[in-house]
């Protein structure tokens, strides 16, 4: 074959291979979405959202406590993870060119790579063992620690993108530096930071491992945040490895609910990014 034709053929083949690679990667995604939908939709009824789990062997029941539990745990994580994360990010953006800044940035990067089960271990030792209680607080703390690095770096990156001219204008008007940062820079970066937070929340909502030894699980409502709390991911795990058919069905239904929650957050976050980019 003529040399040029051979090169062209190779080019085509490689292109084809790359397309194939993309398709192959998306097959599992399609499969997961398909099965979760098909097997989960049957279990979605009013009972699922309003009832408590029934004892083994009895039909019916639902995961109302797990759904609320997930919302509670994510809420706690946001409460404890977002303010420190944002403030730390502000520090890095404003004063981050110091030795401390480099150490903090490094620590945040390290922290984002720590396996979630290790965080669960840490919170168990620190919180559960000392309070002698599995609790929603412990679970929330574990999730907050997981959120922290993402929120911090996100805030830092976005603050840095805000044009200096905005800050200079504020300073020129005599506004003190701290006010300028908070009211002007942070506010401008806020939508982007919110997007980063949404992505962090989506990730944390699906976490199971750290909850295994912190929030534990509960077959009833938890009347306070100091009690073990049911959650969707832990329930999916528990029900999936059980031998009962109807628990399997409930696991698929729970996976559907969780997946919808997570995907909605994820997709809205990305659409907002596009919207902001277009608006600029």
């Amino acid at each position, binding site marked *: 074959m003529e040399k040029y034709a051979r090169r*062209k053929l*190779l*080019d085509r083949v490689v292109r084809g*291979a*790359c397309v194939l*690679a*993309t398709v*192959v*990667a*998306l097959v599992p*995604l399609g*499969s*997961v979405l398909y099965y*979760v939908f098909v*097997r989960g939709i049957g279990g979605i009824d009013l009972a699922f959202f309003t009832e408590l789990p029934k004892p083994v062997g009895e039909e019916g029941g639902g995961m109302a406590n797990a759904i609320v539990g997930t919302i509670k745990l994510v809420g706690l994580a946001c409460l404890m993870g977002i303010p420190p*994360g944002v403030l*730390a990010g502000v520090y890095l953006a*404003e*004063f981050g060119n110091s030795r*401390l800044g480099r*150490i*903090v940035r490094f620590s945040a990067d*390290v*922290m984002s*790579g*720590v*396996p979630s*089960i*290790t965080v669960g*271990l*840490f919170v*168990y*030792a*620190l919180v559960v063992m000392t309070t002698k209680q599995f609790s929603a607080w412990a679970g929330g703390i574990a999730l907050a*620690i997981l959120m*922290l690095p*993402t929120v911090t*770096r*996100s805030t830092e990156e976005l603050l840095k993108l805000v044009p200096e001219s905005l800050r200079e204008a504020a300073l020129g008007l*005599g*506004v*003190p*530096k*701290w*006010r300028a*940062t908070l009211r002007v820079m942070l506010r401008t970066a806020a939508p982007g930071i919110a997007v980063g937070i949404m992505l962090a929340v989506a*990730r944390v909502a*699906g*976490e*199971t*491992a750290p909850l*295994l*030894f912190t929030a534990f699980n509960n077959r009833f409502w938890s009347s306070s945040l100091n009690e073990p709390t049911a959650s969707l991911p832990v329930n*999916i*795990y528990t029900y*999936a490895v059980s031998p009962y058919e109807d628990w399997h069905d409930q696991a698929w239904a729970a996976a559907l609910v*969780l*997946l919808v929650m997570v*995907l909605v957050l994820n997709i809205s976050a*990305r659409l907002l990014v596009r919207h902001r980019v277009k608006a600029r």
Partner: protein
Amino acid sequence: MASDSNAHLPLVRSRSRVLTHLGADGNWGDFLFRRTTALFALAIVVLIAAMAIEMTRESEESIARFGLDFVFGRVWDPVRQVFGALPFIFGTVVSSLLALTIAVPISLGIAIYLSELAPGWARTVLGFLVELLAAVPSVVYGLWGIFVLAPWLRETVQPALGATLGFLPLFQGPALGFGMLAGGIVLAIMITPTISSVSREVLRAVPMPLREGALALGATRWEMVRTAVLPYSKSGLVGATILGLGRALGETMAITMVIGNRAEISASLFAPGYTMASVIANEFTEATEEIYLAALAQIGLLLFVITVLLNIVARLLVWRVGRLPQGGRL
């Protein structure tokens, strides 16, 4: 003194005497602001240090009793209180390497396709879909793994592999569905978005002149990629791979649900295995003796140290080529 120069500005409040203590900050507000944000920033450092210290403390008894033998010990026997982590290290390493073997070529293909070859609309849509792979929670992959992947492997793939390549020790043994192969595949699916998105960024950072130069010399698209883009971004791509490896090592739920939970070293991909993260997840709430707990904590410490080191190496490699996408977690 700073107060004099600011005296004519009504919005800036200043305290003349204390200002000397406040240094560069002109007023109380700035002073507090800087200190408060620094406090929270410091909290991150303290947290990481605390994690490392706490885990070392918890594993003390095990480190004292087993020393280096822990890392090379093949026996994990809670009854006789002999603990060796080698089966878990083996399981973690093999499943992660298998995952990389599958994921790296695919991720590279995706990255090249999306950054060099794809038309605009495909770039957005497909890129978005690949990112969605990362959005699915680990436990949902595990659920899918138990009820969809494992039966498929058991009924279709493993018998086929056994029949054709069964002479290799890699493909011997009963077809259970669950095992190293299932674990490797699930991990591969989960790390593909990480490797491909970082690789995309790395490839994008390659300067246009380099590309244009190759094209101007008459290279086909693939030749341009091969000669101009890839060599330039080599270290970044390696960094992306290492980031993916780090993610694979720390993965817990999905792999626990499909790997078979057997602390044994086997040459076959069909055999069940056990990873460091899985043994902690399975046995932590029930380790009744102190030494058992310490042994599990030591595994946690090992995992922590390895993932931290990998993370550092990866980021150094990627930073060299171009900036990382925003947000710490990829």
